[in-house]
């Protein structure tokens, strides 16, 4: 499918992605016992002889990393070979402690943990600015391969322009952290499709429990763009997903302009300059591709065996697509609502937890989607879509509170207006709705004697209503309105109507 948008480039626009995802939920790095969570350490504290590449050290493969990577492969419908191996990619760079990266490489044999997958996604109906003609149409992206490798260290430059630097600082805390690289075929035909896809897969990573996308730098993306069947240009150095989209728009315009002036687009790597919002030539592709790959001799080939895949599959958490199906088929939630829930794992988990307290999926889902999310939208909707701020955390409300609200409405016949009042108060104060209803004494007036008493008070203060009711059936509704006003809407209208009728007949 072609996603149409303002910068419509025609069918010849081809975009492919290389996504790097840190396995932040692993306890230790890929080849040593240092923590995967390097983010809280002072520079170069989270290191050991192995990840510093000191002479004589050997990589010790983290088997959990292979399992985590396999889960990603399965989520992307990739095949997993029975044997995998690691390769060395040799190049000199100060952030690489060994001046080679231990990775996987498929040119000489099938080495990578996953290959030939695909993933489908649906245009996101929430993205109102997308001008999607048909948001239900599915886009299929082929996955070339998924590979497991080590993250390099991090270089901090004194100045932005590398030429102007007097010094640069290297921090190896990140060196050796497990990284999964996912390479797609050039199947994207618009920047918007890329954005939707990225949000989709970040959500997927969260479901898999392999990475926390809210951590800075945990999910990164390089882009390949070619226009009009021309040469492929790679864009690197893109700091966030928002910038991914911008860099693609820029690159499309740049390449189109070149083509318009009959200038050949060079195959090259360009860096995204976030401040100036342009891509800048880094180095030309031809001179770059000499990595002297060869099999890592210190890690023997890993025989996964035939049972490995099924074992990983059974240990895998529920995927969003499976959860969506369950919500619709088992819980009978509308597809629209189900999708909103599933689109963010934290919201979906919140929903699931609420169900523990009160098993009423439809009512609870409505509370979450119609009430809770509206509130979050008001406060910071952006936070949820971009997965980089707290979302649910900005509201101090627990799944139990939502469950109690649903319970109040369903069991205690609480009407919506009152319920909303309680809900607001509950969110504001963090008090349980059940407590609120007791302490504020706004529990529904459900005993009929009290209602009859109110009716009689009204009828005795306005006796003309008795006459009017005989000629005008709407009088009953007027009386109901008075009762509601008197009780601040705390009576069940059905019961009240019946009692009004009875009272009038009795007279």
């Amino acid at each position, binding site marked *: 499918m072609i996603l149409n948008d303002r910068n419509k480039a025609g069918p010849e626009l081809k975009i492919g992605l290389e996504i790097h995802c840190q396995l932040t939920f692993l306890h230790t790095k890929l080849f040593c016992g240092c923590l995967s969570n390097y983010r809280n350490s002072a520079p170069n504290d989270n290191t050991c002889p192995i990840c510093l590449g000191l002479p*004589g*050290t*050997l990589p010790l493969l983290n088997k959990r990393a292979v399992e985590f990577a396999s889960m990603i492969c399965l989520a992307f419908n990739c095949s997993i070979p029975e044997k995998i191996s690691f390769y060395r990619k040799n190049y000199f760079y100060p952030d690489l402690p060994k001046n080679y990266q231990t990775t996987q490489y498929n040119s000489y044999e099938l080495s990578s943990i996953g290959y030939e997958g695909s993933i489908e996604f649906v245009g996101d109906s929430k993205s109102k600015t997308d001008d999607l003609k048909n948001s239900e149409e599915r886009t299929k992206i082929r996955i070339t391969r998924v590979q497991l490798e080590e993250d390099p260290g991090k270089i901090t430059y004194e100045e932005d322009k590398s030429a102007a630097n007097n010094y640069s600082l290297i921090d190896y805390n990140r060196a050796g952290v497990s990284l999964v690289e996912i390479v797609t075929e050039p199947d994207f035909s618009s920047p918007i499709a890329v954005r939707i896809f990225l949000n989709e897969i970040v959500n997927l990573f969260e479901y898999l429990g392999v990475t926390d996308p809210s951590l800075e730098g945990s999910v990164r993306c390089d882009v390949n763009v070619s226009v009009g069947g021309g040469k492929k240009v790679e864009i690197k150095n893109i700091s966030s997903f928002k910038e991914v989209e911008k860099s693609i728009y820029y690159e499309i315009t740049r390449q189109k302009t070149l083509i318009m002036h009959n200038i050949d687009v060079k195959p090259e790597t360009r860096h995204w300059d976030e401040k100036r919002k342009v891509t800048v030539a880094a180095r030309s592709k031809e001179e770059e591709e000499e990595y002297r790959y060869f099999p890592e001799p210190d890690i023997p080939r890993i025989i996964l065996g035939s049972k490995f895949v099924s074992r990983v599959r059974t240990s895998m958490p529920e995927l969003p697509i499976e959860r969506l199906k369950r919500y619709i088929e088992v819980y009978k939630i509308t597809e629209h609502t189900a999708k909103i829930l599933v689109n963010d794992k934290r919201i979906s988990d919140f929903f699931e937890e609420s169900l523990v307290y009160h098993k009423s999926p439809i009512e609870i889902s409505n509370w979450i989607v119609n009430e809770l999310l509206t509130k979050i939208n008001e406060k910071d909707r952006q936070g949820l879509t971009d997965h980089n701020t707290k979302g649910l955390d900005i509201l101090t409300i627990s799944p139990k509170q939502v469950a109690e609200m649903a319970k109040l409405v369903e069991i205690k016949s609480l009407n919506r207006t009152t319920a909303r009042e309680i809900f607001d108060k509950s969110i504001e104060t963090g008090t349980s709705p059940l407590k609120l209803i007791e302490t504020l004494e706004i529990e529904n007036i459900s005993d009929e004697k009290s209602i009859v008493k109110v009716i009689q008070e009204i009828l005795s203060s306005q006796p003309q209503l008795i006459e009017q009711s005989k000629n005008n059936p709407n009088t009953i509704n007027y009386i109901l309105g008075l009762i509601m006003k008197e009780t601040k809407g705390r009576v069940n209208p059905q019961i009240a109507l019946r009692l009004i009728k009875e009272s009038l007949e009795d007279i």
Partner: protein
Amino acid sequence: MKRLYELPAFVVSRKIKEQEVTAEEYISIIIERIKHIDLRINSFISHNFENAITKSRAIDKKIKEGTNTGLLAGIPVGIKDNISVQGLKNTCASRMLAEYVSPYNATVVSRIEEQDGIVIGKLNMDEFGMGTTSEYSAFGPVRNPWNLEYVAGGSSGGSAAAVASLQIPLSLGSDTGGSIRCPSSFCSVVGIKPTYGSVSRNGLISYSNSLEQIGPIARTIYDLVPLLNSISGFDPKDNTTINRKSEYQTNNVDNILKKRYKIGVLNELIDESESEVAKNTRKKVKELENYGCEIEDARISLSHYALASYYVIATAEASSNLSRYDNLRYGYEGSPEGYEWNSYFAESRSRFGDEVKLRILLGSYVLSAGYFGKYYAKAQKLRSKIRKEFDNLFNKCDILLLPTMPVLPFKIGEKSSQPIEHYNLDVYTILANLAGIPAISIPGGLSEKGFPIGVQLLANGFNEQKLIDVAVLLENVEGFKTWIPKI
């Protein structure tokens, strides 16, 4: 009466355990001996004397208190300078690592210390293990104790020369293509390259990871076995080690003969070696025949391709292993301040010696895009063929016998400017590394001019016991004692 430093380690260790002598006395004698002798041999790069004395006192205390002590109680062990010892300089005989101090112990070093062995110092070698003579050291060549004008063999030249010259009873070397066996042969000591994966490489500074193993060097098989037992076995810190811990024994001759080993003799390779080498090797075959061993002619058809295969694989791996040396994190005195990265890399890496540079260039070339299939992949293919060929041979016999080196020791400087001739010296030793099988070099007598000749035995993977058994047989014909250099 023999002086303590002349005695085998197992004898001295027994004396220490029985409190006939103290470990401290022994270590002090050894230290004096090293100070006295090594000026001429140049086998040590650095010493660990103070720590060694402290350690020996602790062992004496243990023994006095009646605490059990290990297989190597009170025995000084020299460590090749490419094996990490915590707190000691680890130079690999290179200017590149002139100031590098290892912050951790290699697994083999920890295991020696667990057995109450004492690290006495770090031994000279060819830079990063690249050489067959121990001439390519930033600290000067190791001299052969039998004739100081001659090479000691390499790359573990210091390890073999220090043991041969009665400075220390035991040492560790590493063997990538013969680096334990060649100097053992040239200096007349016993050196074994164990089966690939049987000794941890954790802490061994890699030259060619898929080929090399750490192994012990001693003056007699009876000393070699306890050190081999101490260091071998599975190590969680090396994913290429295999979970198969076997205790090796020095059996008595009668029991060995009952095993009726079949000896395959690689006659073709014996014929191709220098005449005195061939003569002495045949003499060893004869001795085994006299024991009643069954002798057969055996042949390795691929031996002539092995050298090319070996140098492609070794240099390819080396080019990558050695790329980490850029002096950004450790290395020598010098700071990257004021340099642009690439020029600093170039500057620091110019400190490698010529032979190392040559091998890095070779290795980078064979791995470059488009050449991988032509060189590296082909070399690996040949390697698996050689493995198969050995498998077939070991279906027919228990042991293969051949010379360790095709030549006698030669003068320092004689071959150092002829790389191809130099590489050709490795032709008999690389076979075991390519196949991953164990190989031992044992003293095989002296030439007419008094230069040592080594005999090499090969066995199938994890059959070190067979090598030890046959070494026991040969030692008991004509003990090692006859061949101690006068220095």
